[in-house]
């Protein structure tokens, strides 16, 4: 269920790297490859790089705090959103910036980014949820999973 994404180190402003201590999340796939920042759903503080209000922001990935009014989830199905079940939370569409995504142990290329929704809770604290849709045949063969993220500008 797309449990991690990475974004190239060079694409994240230094002030954000310092503010969110993203140095701890740096990975490099080979000596000659670019450094990447890993955003893992299993991190103690799961975060996502999001293009929101005209700039790159690092925002919490989903919500796991029971005292928050935002849904207790990491993802949101397109069908759920379209049914109006989340209308009470006033979701806003956002673009999640990513170079690579991880699904069931398979890293795959993301060309433009992923679609997400942003929700503010009763204390105006934001949470970003990855949008999911039924997987294409290709994605299902590649990863063995029946749901995939909503890709921006492509269908894999």
């Amino acid at each position: 269920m797309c449990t991690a994404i990475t974004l190239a180190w060079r694409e994240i402003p230094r002030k954000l790297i310092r503010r969110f201590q993203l140095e701890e999340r740096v990975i490099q796939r080979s000596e000659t490859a670019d450094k990447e920042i890993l955003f893992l759903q299993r991190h103690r503080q799961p975060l996502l790089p999001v293009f929101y209000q005209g700039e790159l922001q690092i925002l919490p990935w989903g919500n796991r705090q029971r005292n928050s009014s935002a849904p207790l989830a990491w993802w949101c199905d397109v069908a759920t959103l379209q049914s109006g079940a989340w209308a009470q939370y006033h979701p806003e569409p956002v673009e999640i910036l990513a170079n690579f995504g991880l699904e069931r142990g398979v890293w795959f290329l993301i060309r433009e980014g992923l679609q997400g929704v942003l929700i503010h809770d009763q204390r105006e604290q934001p949470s970003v949820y990855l949008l999911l849709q039924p997987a294409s045949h290709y994605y299902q063969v590649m990863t063995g999973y029946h749901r995939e993220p909503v890709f921006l500008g492509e269908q894999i």
Partner: protein
Amino acid sequence: MGTTLIGHIDSDCFYVSCERVRSYTLRGVPCGVLGNQGACVIAKSYELKSYGVKTGHPIWEAKKLCPHAVFVKRDFRWYEVISRRLLDLLKMVSPRVEYYSIDEMFFDAGELQRYFQLPLQEATRALQTLVQDEVGVPVSIGIAPSRALAKLGSDAAKPFGVRIVDRENCEAFLRSQPVGELCGIGRRSERKLQDRNIHTCWDFRQADRLLIRDLLTIKGEALWWELRGDSVTPIQTSRPPHKAIARGGSCGGKTSDPERIRAWAVRNIERLIEALDHHRVYARHISLQIDANKTALWLGRTPLAVPSASFRTIYDAVMPMLAAAPQDHLVSHMHIIAENLVWRDRIQKSLFFEDAQSPLDQIKRNINQKLGRFAIRSAETLPLHEIYHDTTHNYDICDISGKMCF
């Protein structure tokens, strides 16, 4: 027109390099290109190769061998764009270029030094740098008096190397190359040669010509001449006309459902007509081959009354063959083959038969060229709902025209 120097340019891990042209983040990353609907690795970067991943490995095995590798969906259209950029650039540098395959080209290297105003070794390096800068893919280049030596040179220089095979270094180079490295020497031929104590390319070159001809026929003898620096096969700047054109492949799993089998046949007919249009030819015979587990199960052949690329005519030829095929096996693969081809501008028009293509065929072609393949298609292909409901679920093959081999 002969040349004294033949060059062979070979792209390093071509599909991955093409992906790296448009996705900078893939540079240096262990990367595999996936084919077969995402099920297996069809190309890999050198970084991924170092983890033991081989072409043909299934994805589940590849991810175990290299858990941090990144996998990319294959995109033959993009690879063709890059391939043609390489071809165009090479045509600027060389008077004659052979489009051998999507990632390999032979060229007349006789004017390389004059073009770059440098000695041969430096000029070849300059060409390599030019390709890297202009096209964006790393290549290896071999230069020699013959094709076989040039190809052997570029193969030995991989990755991102250059090798000039000349009179001075030829012996040492050929001694270092096992005979199995020669293009055209398969495992069986290699065994035959080893039985005669021919292990290296130098041994092959020094062997008796008639012995080589006895063992490997006239093709082996041609290689023998080429290894001696005598160019036997010239550079071919245009592809010789096809003897036959086939379209087909997997039926998306074994099936005995007559509706699905018919739907695959019609889709393959539409693909075949597309290819006949591209090559500007008509077919005089249509064959249908049906396979069960890649073992030919049935082959039918029908002559056409007049050369044709009409959907109606080919459909009327294929459907009776399909009906006559045995029904007691599950069908896994199917091919429709156009044979006995004739150029479109060299046929006698008939007063009594249907035109080689109807106005409907032409309208369909024009719309599909504008809106995309299969935008207009026969309703008989609708039982293949998985293809038309999911654009990622297709069975198209790499159709790149003009190259000499796959």
